[in-house]
C-alpha cells in the first residue's frame, strides 16, 4: 500500500524502452541503406533523365537550395497547407461537436459527408481553378475540402462517444454547461480530433501539390511540374526527397511526441 508499484517497474520499463529504441533505430537505418543501394544500382543502368541516382539527386537538391527559390517555394506551399488545414479545423471541429451531440441533426446531414468524401481532390482543384484562378485561394480551398470532412467525421465520432456518466458526475457537482464542455467533452473529443487532424494534414499536404501543379505559379507543386516539363528529372527527385523528409520529420519530430504527451493517460497495450 505504502509504495507505488509504478516506481519500481518504471526504471525497468524505461531501460526496456531504450533498448527497443536502439533496435528500432538500427532497423530503420539498415532499411534506408538497402533502399539507397537498390536506388543506386537501378540508376546505373538507366539514363539520368528517367531515373537519376542518389548522388545526382543530392547535387540537384544542393543546387536548388543554393541558387533558387527553394525556401520561398517550400514556405509558400507550407503556408497554403497550414492555412487550409487551420480553416478545416476551425470549421470542422464545432460542426463535428454539433452533429455528434445532436442525433437528429447528425442523421440528417450524414449523406452530405459521404458525398463530399467521394469527390476526388483533382475535381476540387478544377473547381477551385474556376472560382479562384491562379492564386493561393485555389490550393487553400483544395486542402480545406480534403481536410475538413476528415476532421469533422472524427470529431463527430468523438462527440458521440462522450460518456453520459461523466456528464452526470459533473452535474452532481453543479458544474455549468460551459465547464462540462471544457472538462468532459473536450478531453473526450481530443484523441479523435488528433487522429483526424493528423490524417487531414497528411492528405492536405499531398493534395496541395496536385492543386499547385494546375492552380499556381509558385510553390513545390508548381516547381515539380516545371521540372517535369523541362525533363529535369533530378530536380523532380530532389523535390520529392524534400517532401518525404519533411513529412517524416513532422511525424516523428512533432506529431508522435505530441501524441504521446497528450495521451499519456491511456493504457499502453
Amino acid at each position: 500500500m505504502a509504495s507505488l508499484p509504478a516506481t519500481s517497474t518504471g526504471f525497468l520499463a524505461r531501460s526496456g524502452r531504450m533498448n527497443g529504441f536502439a533496435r528500432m533505430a538500427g532497423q530503420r537505418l539498415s532499411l534506408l541503406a538497402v533502399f539507397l543501394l537498390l536506388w543506386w544500382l537501378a540508376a546505373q543502368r538507366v539514363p539520368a533523365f528517367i531515373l537519376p541516382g542518389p548522388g545526382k539527386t543530392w547535387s540537384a537538391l544542393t543546387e536548388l537550395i543554393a541558387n533558387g527559390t527553394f525556401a520561398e517555394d517550400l514556405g509558400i506551399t507550407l503556408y497554403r497547407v497550414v492555412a487550409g488545414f487551420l480553416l478545416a479545423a476551425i470549421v470542422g471541429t464545432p460542426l463535428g461537436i454539433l452533429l455528434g451531440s445532436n442525433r437528429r441533426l447528425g442523421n440528417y446531414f450524414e449523406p452530405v459527408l459521404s458525398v463530399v468524401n467521394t469527390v476526388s481532390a483533382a475535381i476540387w482543384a478544377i473547381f477551385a481553378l474556376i472560382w479562384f484562378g491562379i492564386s493561393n485561394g485555389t490550393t487553400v480551398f483544395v486542402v480545406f475540402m480534403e481536410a475538413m470532412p476528415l476532421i469533422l467525421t472524427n470529431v463527430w465520432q468523438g462527440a458521440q462517444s462522450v460518456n453520459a456518466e461523466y456528464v452526470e458526475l459533473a452535474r452532481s457537482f453543479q458544474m455549468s454547461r460551459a465547464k462540462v464542455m471544457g472538462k468532459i467533452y473536450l478531453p473526450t473529443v481530443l484523441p479523435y480530433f488528433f487522429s483526424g487532424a493528423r490524417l487531414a494534414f497528411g492528405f492536405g499536404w499531398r493534395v496541395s501539390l496536385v492543386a499547385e501543379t494546375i492552380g499556381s505559379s509558385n510553390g513545390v507543386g508548381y516547381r515539380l511540374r516545371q521540372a517535369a516539363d523541362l525533363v529535369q528529372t533530378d530536380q523532380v527527385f530532389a523535390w520529392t526527397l524534400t517532401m518525404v523528409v519533411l513529412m517524416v520529420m513532422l511525424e516523428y519530430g512533432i506529431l508522435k511526441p505530441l501524441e504521446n504527451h497528450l495521451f499519456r493517460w491511456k493504457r499502453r497495450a
Partner: protein
Amino acid sequence: MNAILTPAMLAKPPFVRNAVEVTHVSKHFGKLAVLEDISLTAPSGSVLAIVGASGCGKSTLLNIIAGLARADQGEVRIDGVASEPSLDTRVISYMFQEDRLLPWRTIVANTEFGLEAGSLSAAARRERALAALKMTGLEGFESAYPHELSGGMRSRVALARSLVVKPYILLMDEPFSKLDPQMRSQMHEELLRIREQLKMTVVFVTHDVEEAIVLADKIVVLRPRPGRVRESLVIDLPRPRDPLAAEVAETVRRVRALI
C-alpha cells in the same frame, strides 16, 4: 441489548435535527410508478441505509434527494430547507455506483474535479485534494492515472473526490458493490472513521443487508414495484460491528426476512 430492532418512530427523540427529510415523495416514469408515498428522515450525523431488492426505486430516491431528479409529488428538505435542484453542493456530495474516474486525469486531478465548479484558486484546490487523498489513504499515488490502480484504490479516489467538497451530507449509490468482500469491509471501516472525523450525515442505498447493518444507525426497507417504505428500523448495536458476531448476524437474518 435485547431490543435490537425498535420502530424508528418510538426511538426518535424530539430534539434531533434532520439532515435529510423526505415527505410523501412519489415519482412516475411515464405510466410506471417508481416511488409511492415515501417518507423518511436521516438525523444529522447519522448513517441511514435504504435497502431493497432491485426495482424498488432505491437509486431514483437517492437521485431525488441529491437534486439530480425531481419528485412528482412530495418534498425533500435538506437541513430543514426545501431542496432546489440548484442547491449548493458543498452541502451534498454524491458517490456513484461506478467510480467514474476521468481516465485522462491523474488521481489528484480527479479529486480536484469535485471543487472545479466553484471558484477556489488552483492552489487551494490542490491543497484540499491532497488532504482528501491523505484521509482516504492514497498518499503517494497523486500522480498515477486511474488505469494504474486497483478497484479498491479507485473506489478510494471516488470517495476522496466526494469528500473534497467537505460535504454535510454524503449520498452513496451502492458505492462498494463492485469490490471484493475483504476490500469492501476495509472501505466500510474507512468510511465510518471519516464520517466520525467530518461529522457527516451519510445516506446510502444498497441491496446488501449485511453492509447496511454494519454501517447504518437506521435502515429503511423498501418494497418493490412501486417502491414503498416497508419498515423503518433503528440499529442499536455497539460499534465496531463485526458481521460475524452473533448479534449482527441475527439482525441481518431478521432484516433479510423483510425483503
